[in-house]
């Protein structure tokens, strides 16, 4: 019996490998293609007010044990000039979503398998599907129109180049018309903006700076070219608490100073509450709830969101024990057909064993993917007669 199972398992593994190999080959072929005709990636925004629209994004990792669907059918929008918070446990696909925008998934294992990421490029007035755009196009966008702040300031800076080298590299790359002096001037300005005013900072190596300083440099690098969208991927996780506060202050300050959208990825609900206009809650590679900060914090609808809120320590509440959601995230390789949260859910109903729940609008801005709210959603639909829904596709506004 077990031998048979073993055999089956082996056969399966073999097939996985074969499949992966095909995927890798496809990927390498795509990467090697020098020119991608514009028509393949030009598209239209659903709402020109948005800067980014995720439409059924699927980012998979083809590993030896099987395909890991890290992001599976995520759809939400980032409006221009707004801050959007993406929350969820580690491994829920937040970072993969952000890396997908930049097309920085570690290939050939990690690839965007489907869906669109529509980017409203202001400088050219075009709308690009970033999931398909040519690498050339991406290189123009990266660091220039969309920039990213990573979570580990210790390792995100190259240890063998000076701060100046790394900062100026970014500026001169996207502003070829600037001469060396201007670039340096600009670098210093940006540094000043993030609160670093120090003699000879440009000549310093990363290891000569403290963690907070380094994170400021990383932020400066992200802001150096006046991006339209800044993706901050857990910018404070790796820092001391006091430094965290400083960096958050800085981000909040910058939010007002620059005219850019911010996609803030974090598992810290407090940060989101303070900064975000909109919140997206992700679980196991899918969006389970989305809405304005007010919707999510004051009227959480999805049991998972509720759990998250409960597990937050409150200053003015006395509890014996902090709440924690029981159970574990399901195995990302073999995801069940039913709602992924079912095993951990305290308020399961009959329907939960059925198909994965569709997105349900609770209000104009508030959407949730849970069988508990089927009726409520229907009510809204009837009342508002609002937009049509297809599959799990949803818009924030």
């Amino acid at each position, binding site marked *: 019996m077990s031998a048979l199972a073993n055999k089956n398992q082996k056969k399966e593994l073999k097939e996985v490998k074969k499949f992966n190999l095909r995927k890798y080959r496809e990927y*390498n072929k795509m990467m090697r293609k020098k020119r991608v005709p514009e028509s393949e990636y030009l598209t239209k925004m659903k709402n020109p007010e948005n800067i980014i629209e995720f439409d059924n994004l699927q980012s998979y990792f083809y590993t030896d044990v099987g395909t890991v669907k890290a992001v599976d059918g995520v759809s939400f929008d980032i409006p221009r000039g707004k801050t959007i918070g993406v929350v969820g446990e580690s491994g829920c696909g937040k970072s993969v979503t952000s890396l997908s925008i930049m097309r920085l998934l570690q290939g050939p294992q990690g690839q965007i398998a489907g869906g669109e990421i529509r980017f409203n490029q202001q400088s050219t007035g075009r709308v690009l599907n970033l999931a398909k755009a040519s690498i050339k196009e991406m290189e*123009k966008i990266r660091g220039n129109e969309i920039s990213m702040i990573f979570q580990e300031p210790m390792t995100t800076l190259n240890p063998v180049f000076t701060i100046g080298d790394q900062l100026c590299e970014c500026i001169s790359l996207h502003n070829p018309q600037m001469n060396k002096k201007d670039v340096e001037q600009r670098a210093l300005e940006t540094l000043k903006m993030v609160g670093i005013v120090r003699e000879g900072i440009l000549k310093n*190596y990363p290891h000569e700076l403290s963690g907070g300083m380094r994170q400021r440099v990383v932020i400066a690098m992200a802001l150096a070219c006046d991006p339209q969208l800044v993706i901050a991927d857990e910018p404070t996780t790796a820092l001391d608490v006091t430094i965290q506060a400083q960096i958050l202050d800085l981000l909040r300050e910058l939010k007002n100073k620059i005219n850019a959208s911010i996609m803030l990825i974090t598992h810290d609900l407090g940060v989101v509450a303070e900064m975000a206009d909109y919140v997206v809650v992700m679980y196991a590679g899918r969006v389970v709830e989305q809405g304005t900060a007010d919707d999510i914090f004051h009227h959480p609808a999805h049991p998972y969101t509720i759990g998250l809120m409960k597990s937050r320590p409150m200053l003015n509440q006395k509890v014996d024990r902090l709440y924690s959601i029981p159970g574990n995230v399901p195995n990302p390789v073999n995801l069940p057909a039913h709602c992924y949260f079912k095993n951990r859910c305290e308020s399961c109903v009959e329907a939960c064993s059925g198909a994965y729940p569709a997105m349900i609008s609770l209000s104009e801005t508030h959407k949730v993917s849970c069988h508990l709210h089927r009726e409520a959603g229907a009510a809204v639909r009837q009342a508002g007669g609002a937009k049509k829904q297809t599959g799990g596709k949803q818009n924030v506004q």
Partner: protein
Amino acid sequence: MKQYIIKRLLISILVLFGVSILLYGIAHMVPGDYVSNISSGNQNITPEMEQRMREAYGLDKGPVEGYISWLGDAIRGDFGTSFVYKEPVTSIIIKYMPATLALAGISMVLELLLAIPLGILAARRQYSFTDYTIVAIAIVGISLPSFFFAAVLKRVFAIGLGVLPISGMVTARANFTGFALFADMAKHFVLPVTVFVLTSMGSYLRYVRTNMLEVLSADYVRTARAKGLPERKVIAKHAFRNTLIPIVTLFGSMIPALFSGAVITESIFALEGLGNIALKAVYAGDIPYLMGFNMFIAALTLIGTLVSDVLYAVVDPRVRY
């Protein structure tokens, strides 16, 4: 930095001292007494003559006495006179060094020139056909003894096809001068260098590949990409500079390997270099030369290690001495 180098040099001298004791002790145990060697084939040599020769070569001294007198001379730069060549050891080393240095130097540069780009290429294309091919060739190269490669290459290219000379350093028949001589010598070096490169490139290549793989998955490489740097530049600047760090540490260990390898390669291709002579010296019991040669390489190795440590500081700003 200066202080560090001085300290290292002092330690190196200490180490050299230890090396010399070890070497002298072992060399002195060698039974192949030079005098009995040269006299045994000659029917007419009498025991008295042998004794006289032994005294002349200083072979009648004990190990401690011998070592002290050797050390005393060595400190003054006198490593004695080679039994076989009847010339001061230092001048023999100087005379035969160019061939070995040329062989070892060119091989080393070529090894690095091939190992680094190929290693990077393999890492970039991990799990691709290119990757597998490069790694397979590299591993086959380090899976066969060098003399085997040498014999086969010689058979194919020199004897079979006749496109390259079989052995030696220059074409004896032609009196080449100037550039022609240089070209002629280069031609004679093609096979030995190929053997060298084939048989040792593999380990460096794998080393580069592993390091590159690690660097490629590093956060700062992602950062560089996120800045919008073209992939070429990401690899050439950000990744490469970081792979360089472990590579320079290889520098020190390459030198003894090269010289040890030179012993074999030089003897197969009849190149008159230090290694070939060392082989002869072992067979003939030429203790002064052996001591001089081994000390020379030990010193070179220590210098190599020092240089690689200094280079380490050059390529990695985090390292400060």
